[in-house]
């Protein structure tokens, strides 16, 4: 009888375990998609921001605000449309 009990417990472990694994990976997938979207939009490979030695000279405060607004809009859009 103790054994039957253990079996039930182990099945519960399986449910919890597989659930957490899937949950975790699913969240990671979403995050990866989001980061890919953002990075490729705002740091296109041709001029990767983090290694850029010369930031584009035309960028002004106005540009910057527009850019931030665009990012916020993009994230919203992405969250709605994520497949």
């Amino acid at each position, binding site marked *: 009888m103790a*054994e039957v009990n*253990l*079996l039930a*417990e*182990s*099945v519960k*472990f*399986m449910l*919890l*375990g*597989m659930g*957490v*694994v*899937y*949950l*975790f*990976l*699913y*969240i*990671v*997938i979403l*995050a*990866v*998609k989001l*980061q*890919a979207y953002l*990075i*490729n939009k705002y*740091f296109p*490979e041709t001029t*990767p921001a*983090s290694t850029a030695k010369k930031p584009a000279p035309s960028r002004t405060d106005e540009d910057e605000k527009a850019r931030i607004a665009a990012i916020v809009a993009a994230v919203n859009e992405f969250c709605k449309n994520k497949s």
Partner: protein
Amino acid sequence: MRIKQLLISLFFALFALTTMVQASGNPAPSGEATEQSSEEHVYKSKSMAELANSFWKTTGINAILDTKDGEMTSEPAGHDAERPMTAFESSLGRIIMILIVFLLFYLAIAKGFEPLLLLPIAFGGLLANIPLAHMAGEHGMLGIIYNMGIANEFFPLLIFMGVGAMTDFGPLLANPKTALLGGAAQFGIFGSLVGAVLIGFDLQQASAISIIGGADGPTSIFIANRLAPDMLGAIAVAAYSYMALVPVIQPPIMKALTTKEERQIKMGVQRKVHRLEKLVFPIVVLVFSILILPESTPLIGAFALGNFFKESGVVDRLSDTMQNALINIVTIFLGLGVGSKLAADKFLVLETMGIMVIGLLAFSAGTAAGVIMAKIMNKFSKEPINPLIGAAGVSAVPMAARVVNKVGMDAKPGNILLMHAMGPNVAGVIGSAVAAGVLLSIFK
């Protein structure tokens, strides 16, 4: 030459001086020291025959033949943990273990089965079964190594760091949904947990054994050490043996679960992944594991550390060292330390048979679950997914991905699945670490 002569004369002059000073100035301490030494080293005269006889008593032949000599087991935790060996353990058991070690040598060298770890483990097993030498004891070479990095789980983490520095997450980032295949394959862990309970292991032991299904050496050693240290040797040997046997175990299962048409599915070219994506990814994974499952952070943290250092591109010295000198040194030590658990008194127990059976079950179940999940995803996905790549979800990096590629090529020449299989393959490593974290959190 003259200078040399001068120096040598000086040397001897100094010695002579020293001697005089000592002889005159402070005879007491010197005499005392000698006295102490002679006190310590009492030696009873023995006839030549007695000497030969007492030598015979220290031979390995006598130790193996005389099963009533009361030899103790070797325990890295020290003398308190020792117990007298049984007659079987101190004689036939040792011989059996040494033959098993030779079999592992054969598999590693002639068959090329994961030699980088099987060879050190097997050699550790050979040394651990030497009578009287107590090499696996607290003061023996293996015991020192065990206490240095296995008892405290340090070495598996260092290995994971190096593996992280060798891993390229590009294929996973290019096609992130294949991570789900690395999740499905964790059924190898949790399914075999149920199996292990069925054949009589308790829950904690069953959990330790089932981690073999993660197909990931350091994770297995880390968890086994936490949940069932007595079974460490068998679990590690099973994990590495079955990882080595992946090319034998997986293909029949993969073929049984897929149609020829499915195996022939070609997958598109992967998109190029941005350098920043690779850089940010290990941190993203680590942050989620912090939020959801802190118990998995030693493993995922070490892995992310290695990967982050590599992708940062600014600490190549350190990343190279992690991938070479450090991981090689630790691999030698890890293997030897794990091998110390192949002592007959620890390995030749009934549980070992069960561990071997469950381990095989775990690999098979993981493979099957991965393939089935891939079939399901193929049904619902816009782009075609070859179900074979699900088999790579068990990890066993990069062996399983290569097997997928080979089976794909057999079904249709030119059907190169390698990079597509690498995604589930590395996701399987993360998945196993998460599964390990769940098991640890249950028994905390």
